[in-house]
């Protein structure tokens, strides 16, 4: 999974801003979203991201996998990540 060419990400106190500058669309995410974005930027796979988050959050792995999958799908639907 790769970020599209015109996507810019900036960390903020609340999490991160994602700016898809070609379509001029702005998205906001919280700190967990920011952590996922950082992992995606490092080239982590879905399972690697889930494994990392399981160690940080006291939630069942199935819930974490669902949440991460949904988040990644939102990024793809909004042309932030390539499919």
């Amino acid at each position: 999974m790769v970020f599209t060419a015109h996507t810019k990400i900036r960390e903020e106190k609340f999490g991160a801003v994602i700016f898809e500058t070609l379509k001029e669309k702005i998205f906001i995410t919280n700190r967990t979203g920011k952590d996922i974005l950082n992992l995606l930027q490092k080239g982590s796979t879905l399972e690697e991201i889930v494994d990392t988050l399981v160690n940080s959050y006291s939630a069942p792995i199935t819930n974490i996998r669902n949440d991460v999958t949904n988040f990644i799908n939102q990024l793809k639907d909004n042309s932030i990540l390539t499919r």
Partner: protein
Amino acid sequence: MDLINSVTFKDLKAPLFIAWQINSECNLGCLHCCEEAGHPMPDQMHKDQIFNFLRQIIELKIPYVALSGGEPLLHPQFFEICEFLRQFNISLKVETNGEFIDRNLAKIFARLKFRSVQISLDGATKDTHERLRLRGDWNKTVSACKALIEEKVNTEIVFVPTKFNIHEIGELIDLAYSLGVWGVYTGKIMRIGRAAKNWDILCPSDEEYDVFFAVLNKKIAQYDGRMKVYYYPYDVIEELKYRLRYPSASLLVIPNGKVKLIGPLPFICGDLRKHSLIQVWENYKQAWSNPKVVEFAKKVIEEPWLVSEANDWIELYH
């Protein structure tokens, strides 16, 4: 970890977008120019001040910059500025009349991987375009589009409807598609600068706008999925009403380094020759709740002709 909507511009550590009028010099004398561009501004930022500003853009991780003018390609440091920003992977758009863009310049835009080059084309025909854009050359502008598209530069066309050209919107969109442009942008003319002085001969009637929107909507449907045709939905007063409630996370920088709160208002919230960019951003955040600004903006909403005073600056911070 969802994408969320509860954040406002005040929560951001820096702007997300800089609209930078790098000069006021222009080779044309367009009747509808909202900047009254033509001659250089006497106190335009010099090279050291420009690069000081650019370094702050990088430090603050501002993701997206649009360069305009005047005619930005007349600025002596235009390509140095572009090279600098692209070196740090800032998304970059330029708004130009296109008249200086030949194959060689198109290759430079391609190498620098601009987000887009946005060209003002105000007619589907030479006569119409040149009646509005005095000293303009329609052939050069269309050639610029072709050169950019051949070099695979993301090319956009901007069309401002006036009494002179409003009837050509359909043909213009067809022309844009035949050229292979990425998108056509249009929106109501703003009553600022030279456009304000020529308002009576420029501003289309309601009936002309009705026909315009009918054609536009047809073209939007016709090119759906093939070419972006975008109408900016707010006129200057609607924009002001909206921005009073939801200010944007962007700064409008004029050639002398002063930063306007928003195009239709005269308020200046900082000077990049004297203030740091982060200070200007903090000023900007506060300025939107400054009673002087709010009161004046409400007055403009009631009496739209006051927008014509938008270039008579009022400094909020010295």
